[in-house]
């Protein structure tokens, strides 16, 4: 396997044999591990996707953290803090996975801060009321779970393993959101209206989280061939809609789509057209909170610099002292 025999398919860099081994592993549903040979484009695709995913987790802390100090009870406050801490943890699992591909943590953060790598556009929407915390848990985390469960079987081992951990924890996120909305929905008239308003605002952006329609999705076909992706954007979006409709009924809330109805023939729900112009605008940086999110992210990083430096200095001093002690002994 180490030497690729010259043949018609041989490349200038002699990777034909490696390519064949890689293709065979993917076809056999085996996992690719960090030290295996992999095509450059596979590596680049994974770095892009995992980095975007990691960035989304840590940027996603902001809209919810916005409500920690104003949570209506100690119970809700403790839950929200645990959830936001989880999001930080998810970011770290994913940065670790990206690092196995040879891209350093600092480099990834630099690219986030300078806008060269993106995060999910859903986090560029504001959390205007307490009910938004519930809508995010139910719909945004619900959409994320729908997307992420198949990623547990992704062909790249470290990414798949990170997703297993994340999916286990996301379930709590979704349920706490649902419970929160249920409490509001069954509360006073004003509380019910607040819950409905949050669902009205988060429903469409949540559907956009699955990405552009299949025929416009730039990377989908190749990612599915590589088994990074297991289902198409539209397939997952449909699955999510079908899951949400009865859940909304149980909440006593409606979904803001007049065209939403059960299609007996398809055995699925029909739903109205998505405003992709809005999606593209938010993606471009023109969403309600793009500027705020990245500014806050940069500020947090800069203001934490002294902590990182102090810890490094302490470690260096301590390791020097240990070395000298060793010498004296």
């Amino acid at each position, binding site marked *: 396997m180490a030497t690729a025999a010259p043949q018609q398919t041989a490349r200038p860099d002699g990777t034909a044999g490696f390519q064949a081994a890689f293709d065979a592993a993917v076809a056999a549903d085996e996992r690719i591990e960090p030290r295996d040979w992999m095509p450059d484009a596979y590596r680049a695709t994974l770095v892009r996707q995992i980095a975007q995913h990691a960035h989304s987790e840590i940027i996603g802390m902001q809209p919810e953290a916005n409500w920690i100090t104003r949570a209506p009870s100690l119970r809700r406050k403790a839950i929200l803090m645990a959830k936001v801490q989880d999001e930080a943890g998810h970011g770290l699992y994913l940065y*670790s996975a990206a690092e196995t591909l*040879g891209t350093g*943590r*600092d480099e990834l953060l630099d690219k986030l801060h300078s806008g060269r790598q993106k995060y999910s556009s859903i986090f560029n929407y504001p959390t205007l009321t307490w009910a938004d915390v519930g809508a995010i848990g139910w719909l945004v985390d619900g959409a994320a779970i729908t997307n992420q469960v198949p990623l547990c079987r992704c062909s790249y081992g470290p990414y798949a*393993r990170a997703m297993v951990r994340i999916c286990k924890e996301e379930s709590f996120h979704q349920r706490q959101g649902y419970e929160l909305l249920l409490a509001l929905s069954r509360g006073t008239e004003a509380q019910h209206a607040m819950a409905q308003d949050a669902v009205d605002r988060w429903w469409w952006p949540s559907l956009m989280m699955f990405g552009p329609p299949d025929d416009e999705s730039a990377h989908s076909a190749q990612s599915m061939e590589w088994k990074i992706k297991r289902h198409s954007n539209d397939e997952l979006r449909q699955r999510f809609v079908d899951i949400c409709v009865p859940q909304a009924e149980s909440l006593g809330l409606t979904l803001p789509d007049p065209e939403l109805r059960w299609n007996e023939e398809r055995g699925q729900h029909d739903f109205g057209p998505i405003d992709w112009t809005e999606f593209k605008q938010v993606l471009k940086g023109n969403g309600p909170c793009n500027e705020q999110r990245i500014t806050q992210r940069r500020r947090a990083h800069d203001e934490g610099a002294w902590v990182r430096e102090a*810890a490094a200095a302490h*470690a260096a001093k301590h390791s020097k002292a240990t070395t000298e002690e060793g010498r004296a002994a």
Partner: protein
Amino acid sequence: MSETPSSTSSGQEWPLWEVFVRSRRGLAHTHAGSLHAPDAELALRNARDLYTRRGEGVSLWVVPSAAITASSPDEKDPFFEPSADKPYRHPTFYEIPEGVKHL
């Protein structure tokens, strides 16, 4: 999680550590993932926060990633080959008459 210690862009990044968690007494430590920390003490604290938020562990190991020596995937076949042609190392290799018990 990170089998390859990463190269850093700035050179100031905290070193990478591999985290092993014993989920309960009587079981071996299992690799859980990796993290960055300036020293072993903080690596342990970060590992607690990152990998045992839900009672996943009763004991933690942190090991500098750079201290791990791994077999190369390229030499997979020759390296592990000696075990492949010795089926007589497995109990199922041996034929025992039916009815013989406790074997």
